[in-house]
C-alpha cells in the first residue's frame, strides 16, 4: 500500500512545523534582549498557517489520507481555524507578560507552537492512535507551561497537580481505547462504528467500560466535574496567558476529541455515553457555579466559570443522546457554543491580564473602582463578563440560546430535566459575573494601587482585547456567523 500525501491538506501543520524549527534555531542565536523575535515568528507562523486553511475552505472538498485516518473536512477546517485564532490571541497576550518577568521566552513560544500543532493534528484525526497523539501533543507542553514561573511555589504546584491528574486521565483514556480496539478490531472511527453491532453480548460490559473510560479521559481535558479538580489550582498558579490557552484551546481540544469519537465511532452507543454525559454536564454546571460564588481571586473564579461552561457545552449533546434523537443538532449547538466561548473567554483573560498589571493584584476586591481609572479596560471587562453571563446583545446569549434550543427540541424527560438544571445554573452564574462587574464599576477605588501595579497594557495585549471584543459584539448582533460555523461542522459529519 502506498500512501499519497495531499500537501495542501497538511499545509497548516507544515507551516507550524517550520515555525517551530525556526523558533528553535533562532532561540539559539538571539541574545536576551532580542528574544522577542521568537514571539514575532510565532505570531507570523500562526498567521501564515491560516492561509491554506482559507484556501481549503473555499473549495469545499473533503480530503482524506491514510485510509481515512487523517481527514480535512469542514469540521476540521472550522476547528483548526478556531485553534489558530485562539493561538494567535494567546500569543498576543503572552508577548508582554513573558517579556516582563524573566522567563524563558524562546522555549515558551516553542512549546505553545507545539501545542498548537498538536491541536491541528487532533482536529484532523479520525482514528484512535492519531487522536491520542494529537491530544498528548496538545497537552504535553501545557504541563510544562503551567509551571513556567519557576520560582513561584504556586506555579510549581499548578504544574504538578495538572500533570499528575493529566497522566491519570491519559492512562484511563488509553485503557478505554485499548478495550475498544480489542473488541472492535479497528482503531479508525468508521471501522469501530461498523464493528460494534457484531460485538457479542458477553463482551458488552467491556465495551461499556471502554467507552466510559474514554469519556472520562476526555472529561478531564474539558474539565468536567468530577474530573475538574486540576482546573482551579492550575488556572490560578499558571501564568495567565497559559491559563487563557488552557481554558480555551485545551478545552476545545478535549471537546474535539470527545465529539469526533462519540459522534463518529460511538454514534450508535448513545445509551452508554448519553447518561454519562448527562451526569457530567449536570455535575459540572452545578458544582462549578456554586463554588464560583465564593471565590475571591479573579483567575480562580474564571476557572470555575470555565468548568461551568464546559458543563453547558455538554448539555446539547447529552440531551440529544439521552432522548435518542439524531445528534447533528446537538453537535452543531456545541460547536457554536465552543466558538463563541473561545472568543469571549480569551477576551476576558486578556482583560484580566491587563487589569492585573494595572491594579497589581488578582483579588477581586483589589479591582474595586477599576472602571474609574481605566475606563476602556473597564468597559471591555464588562463586555466579556456579561457575555459570559449570557446577556444580549453580547455573543454569550446566543450560545446559551442554541444550547437550550437543542436540548429542548430533543425532548424526553431526561433532556428536559437537564434543561432545567442548565437554566438554574445560568441564573446562579449570573450572580458572580455580575459581582465582578459591580466591583469594577460601582465600588470606590482604593486609595493606593497594589505594589505590583505597572504601566498600562501594551500594544499586543490591546490588540488581543480589541479583536476579541469586536468578535463578541459582532456575533452578538449577527449570531448567524457563528451558527454558520456550527452548522458547517455537522453538514460534513453527516454526509461523510
Amino acid at each position, binding site marked *: 500500500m502506498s500512501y499519497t500525501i495531499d500537501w495542501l491538506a497538511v499545509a497548516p501543520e507544515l507551516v507550524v512545523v517550520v515555525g517551530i524549527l525556526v523558533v528553535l534555531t533562532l532561540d539559539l542565536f538571539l541574545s536576551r534582549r532580542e528574544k522577542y523575535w521568537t514571539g514575532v515568528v510565532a505570531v507570523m507562523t500562526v498567521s501564515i498557517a491560516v492561509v491554506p486553511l482559507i484556501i481549503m475552505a473555499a473549495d469545499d472538498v473533503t480530503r482524506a489520507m491514510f485510509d481515512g485516518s487523517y481527514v480535512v473536512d469542514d469540521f476540521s477546517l472550522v476547528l483548526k481555524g478556531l485553534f489558530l485564532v485562539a493561538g494567535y490571541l494567546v500569543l498576543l497576550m503572552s508577548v508582554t507578560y513573558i517579556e516582563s518577568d524573566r522567563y524563558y521566552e524562546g522555549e515558551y513560544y516553542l512549546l505553545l507552537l507545539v501545542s498548537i500543532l498538536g491541536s491541528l493534528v487532533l482536529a484532523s484525526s479520525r482514528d484512535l492512535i492519531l487522536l491520542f497523539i494529537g491530544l498528548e501533543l496538545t497537552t504535553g507542553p501545557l*504541563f510544562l507551561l503551567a509551571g513556567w514561573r519557576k520560582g513561584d511555589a504556586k506555579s510549581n504546584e499548578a504544574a504538578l497537580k495538572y500533570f499528575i491528574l493529566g497522566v*491519570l486521565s491519559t*492512562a484511563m483514556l488509553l485503557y478505554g481505547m485499548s478495550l475498544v480496539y480489542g473488541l472492535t478490531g479497528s482503531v479508525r472511527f468508521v471501522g469501530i462504528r461498523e464493528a460494534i453491532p457484531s460485538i457479542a453480548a458477553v463482551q458488552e460490559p467491556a465495551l461499556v467500560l471502554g467507552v466510559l473510560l474514554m469519556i472520562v479521559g476526555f472529561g478531564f481535558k474539558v474539565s468536567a466535574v468530577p474530573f475538574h479538580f486540576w482546573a482551579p489550582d492550575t488556572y490560578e498558579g499558571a501564568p495567565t496567558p497559559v491559563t487563557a490557552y488552557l481554558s480555551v484551546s485545551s478545552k476545545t481540544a478535549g471537546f474535539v476529541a470527545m465529539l469526533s469519537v462519540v459522534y463518529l465511532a460511538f454514534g450508535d452507543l448513545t445509551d452508554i455515553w448519553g447518561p454519562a454525559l448527562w451526569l457530567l454536564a449536570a455535575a459540572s454546571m452545578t458544582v462549578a457555579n456554586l463554588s464560583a460564588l465564593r471565590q475571591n481571586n479573579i483567575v480562580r473564579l474564571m476557572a470555575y466559570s470555565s468548568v461551568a461552561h464546559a458543563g453547558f457545552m455538554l448539555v446539547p449533546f447529552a440531551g440529544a443522546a439521552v432522548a435518542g434523537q439524531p445528534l447533528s443538532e446537538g453537535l452543531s449547538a456545541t460547536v457554536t457554543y465552543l466558538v463563541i466561548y473561545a472568543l469571549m473567554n480569551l477576551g476576558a483573560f486578556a482583560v484580566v491580564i491587563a487589569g492585573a498589571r494595572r491594579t497589581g493584584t488578582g483579588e477581586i476586591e483589589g479591582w474595586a473602582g477599576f472602571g474609574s481609572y481605566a475606563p476602556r479596560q473597564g468597559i471591555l471587562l464588562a463586555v466579556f463578563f456579561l457575555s459570559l453571563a449570557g446577556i444580549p446583545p453580547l455573543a454569550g446569549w446566543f450560545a446559551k440560546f442554541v444550547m437550550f434550543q437543542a436540548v429542548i427540541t430533543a425532548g424526553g424527560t431526561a433532556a428536559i430535566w437537564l434543561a432545567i438544571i442548565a437554566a438554574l445554573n445560568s441564573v446562579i452564574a449570573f450572580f458572580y459575573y455580575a459581582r465582578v462587574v459591580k466591583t469594577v464599576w460601582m465600588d470606590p477605588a482604593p486609595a493606593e494601587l497594589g505594589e505590583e501595579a505597572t504601566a498600562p497594557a501594551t500594544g499586543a495585549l490591546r490588540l488581543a482585547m480589541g479583536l476579541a471584543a469586536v468578535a463578541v459584539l459582532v456575533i452578538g448582533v449577527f449570531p448567524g456567523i457563528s451558527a454558520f460555523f456550527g452548522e458547517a461542522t455537522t453538514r460534513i459529519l453527516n454526509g461523510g
Partner: protein
Amino acid sequence: MIINQFLILAALLFSLGVYGLLVRRNAVMVLLAVELMLNAVNINLIAFEAAIRSTLAVGQVFAIFVITVAAAEVGIGLAIVILVFRNRKSANVDELNLMKW
C-alpha cells in the same frame, strides 16, 4: 487464541497503578504508579493484537506509540517534580496545598 489471562493481568496492574497513585506520598512514586498504568494498557493492546491479528499490526503500532508518549510524559513529569523539589526541598505531594477551595 484465548487472551483472558493477559487482560486480567493488565486490569490488575492498572488497578495497582491507581492504588499507587492514590496512596503514595512521594511524587516520584506516583509517577511510577502512572507508568505502571500505562504499561498495563500496553499489555492490553498487545494481547488484543495477538487475538485479532490485523494486517497492519495496529495494536502493536498503538503500543509503540503509547510507549513513546509515556516516555515523553515521564520526562515532563520528572522535570516538574525536580522543579517542585528544588523549591520546596521535598517531593511529598501531601504538602502541596497552597491553593485550595
